[in-house]
């Protein structure tokens, strides 16, 4: 079986498993939710790895393409959270955003953008790893903010997700700046992408300062985290739709 078929099939199987996990979650069958979730994560991991090889050479950027990598990161962080906290029902509610983003991935072209000479450096995949991981943290922060606003006071840990997301996003900016310097001779470009990244960074930097403002309670912070993720969705995630028409290989 060609690797592209393995990758796409595993993506569908992952979606199916997460779907079962969601059904079990709504029926409050915690053990089943967990088993299906882990199954989905396993299929998704296979799908991502095989995606990196399916044009015949290893292309790490294909593994870390945002549309496909974001739901994987969300699932990975959910599993990490499961090992840290014991609030199973609250934690596995994250299967809802995972499914939403996976559905977008299923509709998205599965081919791979051919690697240009300016992306063939370790800084390029590293940038995407940190950026998408940061987006996943922001997404989970927004999700648990909704839970918090929906009278789940034990979801106050959304604040930690914002902080970790901000740190990862900052690392992504440093790594991205080095990549940009090597490829385009500048740490910062006056381009839509760079300005929007700076806008997101400043917005989350403002959030980080909220802890020093007594007028902002957790409820207001939850609303702020939601607004910040709306910015991420609009600026970063929607940019993937513009890449849908790019020439792609395989898939």
């Amino acid at each position: 079986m060609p690797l592209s078929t393995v990758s796409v099939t595993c993506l569908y199987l992952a979606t199916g498993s997460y779907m079962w996990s969601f059904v079990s979650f709504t029926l409050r069958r915690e053990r089943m939710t967990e088993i299906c979730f882990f199954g989905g994560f396993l299929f998704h991991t296979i799908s991502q790895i095989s995606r990196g090889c399916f044009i015949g050479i290893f292309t790490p950027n294909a593994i870390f393409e945002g549309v496909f990598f974001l739901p994987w990161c969300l699932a990975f962080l959910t599993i990490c959270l499961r090992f840290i906290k014991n609030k199973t029902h609250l934690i596995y509610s994250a299967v809802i955003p995972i499914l939403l983003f996976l559905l977008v991935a299923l509709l998205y072209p599965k081919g791979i953008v051919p690697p240009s000479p300016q992306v063939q450096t370790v800084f390029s995949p590293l940038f995407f790893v940190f950026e998408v991981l940061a987006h996943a943290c922001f997404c989970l922060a927004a999700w648990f903010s909704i839970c918090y606003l929906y009278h789940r006071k034990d979801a106050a840990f959304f604040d930690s997700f914002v902080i970790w997301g901000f740190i990862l996003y900052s690392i992504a900016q440093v790594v991205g700046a080095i990549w940009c310097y090597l490829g385009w001779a500048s740490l910062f470009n006056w381009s839509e992408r760079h300005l929007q990244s700076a806008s997101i960074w400043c917005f989350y930097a403002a959030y980080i300062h909220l802890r020093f403002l007594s007028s902002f309670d957790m409820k207001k912070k939850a609303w702020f985290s939601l607004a910040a993720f709306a910015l991420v969705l609009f600026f970063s995630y929607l940019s993937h739709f513009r890449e849908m028409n790019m020439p792609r290989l395989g898939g």
Partner: protein
Amino acid sequence: MLQRIWKFCGSVNVTFYLLLLVSFNLAIASFYVKFYPQIFRPLNNFLLQDWFNLYGQNNPDKIWWLWTMFGLLLALGFNTGICTLDRIRNLLVKRHNVDMRVFLLKITPSLIHMCFLIMLSGHLISMISGFNKRIPVSSELETPSPIQAQILDQHCDYFKSPELLKGHLDQCTLSFKLHTGGEEVVKQLSFLNPFTYQGFSFHLSRDKKAREEGLQIIIKRDPGLKFILFGFTFLVLLMLWYFPKLQKNTKGG
């Protein structure tokens, strides 16, 4: 009165709203850059003052956000500076009453702010000083005086395998002869492998709109580069130390 003004200028409240305003300003800027590329793309190839003379001054209605951005960043810089000075002064006064580890934890946000200021200054230096030139590859290269350059060899490799990638550009390499006065050196330049000569860095790039490879050489001297890299890297490292420590302390009560 002066003390109240000083306190207001360095308050976290002001920081918060300034950061929000900078964020919105950058968001607006991204749309201007997107819809007027003919005005703003050259900003990457010129120093700010040169760009302003050539493009900016003829389009005042499209570059207003640049002035508001400079104003806001300047205000943010002052606010951060005042806040940092105040905090460090207060911490140093109480230095002997607190444990070294607690002192380090408390002073870290100020160090993060200092890194931010260094990074911000680096961006300003990069924009207004140094040298920035983008030239298409040809046998006669216009290089900054007193450097003279001549291309000895130029070749591009294309993927031969796997089947799906056949014909796609893999890498291009240029061989240069550079001479300044009596000194003469041969250097190789390829994508993602810049070199430095006489304080100038040489990068290989390409014009995506060109029909063939569209190879371009970017010659740059960027005095702000080290400030930006140093500031941002240490800012991240300090955050990586500070926030987990803070969370651990909060959990521990």
